[in-house]
């Protein structure tokens, strides 16, 4: 074994408690960063998934001027004969499902309460409705020819104490700029585990929505889901929709993508802070070691050890601490992250409304990647070695004669 490595190992063993504590500091830092990175990544992926599956789809066909936020019901902002077009799009092999959606805004009135809501007209048999069909907690799903039935979300049902069979009044904006009011029966209650969405979204069969909003044979968009997200660009090319535009999830989720980038930047600073604390611990440990071993450095110098070998001795100690600490950190962090990736963290309603363009589920499932494991380990090791650099050069700077005069 190389003598520098051997001496470093023995030096670490010399003050075992201090070495172990330093390694634990690195381990905690590593595990913390791993958990943070996986959690943020998981949250972003989860939120993106929710956004795509509930609101934006992988692709949308709509008019140039249509904006999800204002739910325009003017015919110039809408798609004519949407079922024909969605049928045609479903013919593209990479497309899992395509279906028209008609978005309208309105007010729900029940007893003395009135609540602002959005109505989404859906084609009930379409598989794009899977999240609501699978998320049904009470009652039945809608049928295409239902003229009086709606589906409401679980938080809304709970807050108003509603269940299937109950009646509510909906006041809905029409394309003529007026409102129409009608009594509806609750057919079913659904949950997507996205409180911000479920609280305000009511589903109605497309045809009925068209009638009540006076937009017969029109829809706000064609909502498209793909088998593989990676096919987005190819399908976008393949869709033939003259007079309309095709937007992909990235374009529709501009705000979301921005938030994602912002959180990556924040993550970077968080990493820096955690690693900074770890670095301070290591620097302190090694500086103490240098002061304690000053005379020993003098002896080594007298025996002919050069400055760079003395430096190598301390840097090797830092490296061993780093590798040991990171390994412990991974041994703790990876099982922890994998466990939470299965069970998730439950947060409940974080009070973010569906209209903000970002929807967050009530649980976060950390999403660890091998890339994160490698980059965090590498960063922790690198920072530790760098923080050993100052103590190591202090040791290397000692003149043998001064070191020999030291009392340590």
């Amino acid at each position, binding site marked *: 074994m190389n*003598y520098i490595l*051997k*001496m470093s190992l*023995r*030096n670490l*063993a*010399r003050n075992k408690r201090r070495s172990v504590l330093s390694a634990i500091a690195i381990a905690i830092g590593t595990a913390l960063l791993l958990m943070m990175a996986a959690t943020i990544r998981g949250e972003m992926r989860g939120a993106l998934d929710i956004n795509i599956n509930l609101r934006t789809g992988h692709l949308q066909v709509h008019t140039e001027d249509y904006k999800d936020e204002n739910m325009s019901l003017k015919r110039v902002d809408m798609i004519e004969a949407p079922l024909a077009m969605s049928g045609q799009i479903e013919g593209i092999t990479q497309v899992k499902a395509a279906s028209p959606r008609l978005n309208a805004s309105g007010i729900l009135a029940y007893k003395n309460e009135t609540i602002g809501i959005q109505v989404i007209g859906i084609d009930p048999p379409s598989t794009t409705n899977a999240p609501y069909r699978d998320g049904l907690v009470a009652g039945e799903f809608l049928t295409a020819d239902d003229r009086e039935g709606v589906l409401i979300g679980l938080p809304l049902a709970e807050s108003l104490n509603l269940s299937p069979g109950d009646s509510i009044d909906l006041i809905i904006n029409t394309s003529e700029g007026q409102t129409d009011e009608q009594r509806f029966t609750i057919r079913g209650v659904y949950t997507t585990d996205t409180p911000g969405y479920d609280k305000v979204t009511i589903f109605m069969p497309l045809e009925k929505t068209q009638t009540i909003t006076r937009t017969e044979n029109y829809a706000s968009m064609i909502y498209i889901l793909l088998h593989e997200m990676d096919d987005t660009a190819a399908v976008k090319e393949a869709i033939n929709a003259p007079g309309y535009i095709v937007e992909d999830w990235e374009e529709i989720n501009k705000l979301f993508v921005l938030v994602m980038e912002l959180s990556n930047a924040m993550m970077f600073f968080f990493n820096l802070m955690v690693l900074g604390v770890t670095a301070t611990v290591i620097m302190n440990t090694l500086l103490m070691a240098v002061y304690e071993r000053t*005379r*020993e450095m003098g*002896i*080594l*110098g*007298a*025996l*002919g*050890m*050069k*400055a*760079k*070998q003395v430096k190598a001795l301390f840097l090797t100690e830092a490296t061993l601490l780093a590798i040991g600490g990171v390994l412990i950190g991974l041994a703790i962090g990876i099982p922890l992250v994998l466990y939470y990736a299965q069970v998730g963290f439950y947060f409940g309603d974080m009070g973010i409304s569906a209209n903000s363009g970002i929807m967050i589920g009530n649980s976060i499932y950390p999403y660890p990647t091998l890339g994160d494991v490698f980059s965090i380990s590498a960063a922790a090791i690198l920072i530790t070695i760098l923080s050993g650099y100052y103590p190591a050069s202090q040791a290397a700077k000692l*003149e*043998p*004669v001064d070191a*020999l005069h030291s009392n340590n």
Partner: protein
Amino acid sequence: MEIAKLTDITRIYKVGEVETRALNGVDLSIGEGEFTTLVGPSGSGKTTLLQLIGCLDMPTSGKVFINNEEATSMNRDQRADLRKGTIGFIFQFFALIPTLTAYENVELPMLLMGKKNHKSRVMKLLDAVGLANRAEHRPDQMSGGQQQRVAVARALSVDPLLILADEPTANLDTQNGEQIMEIMKKLNEETNTTFVFATHDPRVIKYAKRIVTLEDGKIVKDKNIA
């Protein structure tokens, strides 16, 4: 042949405002095979002179030559290189590396020189100082006398031309002190290795073949003993 030569050496220590002239115009030449002691009252400059011969320290003025190479014009790493195969040290305190065994302490200077296949040589040296059975012991598992003998073996490991010893017997009892001196005397006679001691100890002085006396940083007497 001349191993070390010092010309007109001055060494001034400065601590704050206070200047101490530890050596003041010293000329000294050490020839091959000498067994020399530096004596003199406490504070007369013995340790300082030894450190200058060993190139651990640099004089304020004057020149130091080791094997006709001028050490005073070298940087620290060059001096470390010069020391490595040439000069061995024995300190007053038992300056072993506490994490290394007796064997490893003796081996270390050889490793620093990049020497290979040294096992038999290390064992021979430990045997010469009577510690072959302590090879695997750490310094804290040995007595002071044993530690100092390991230090002697270590100083010898790279076959240096010159061994410098600063009060090697000061922390040893009479018996251990005599034993160390006997070992060094034997080496001097057998291998012609040069020894320079700084000491107050009459037990050391009685072995000396040359006695250099320092007073107030000056050599006041230089006597050869036939």
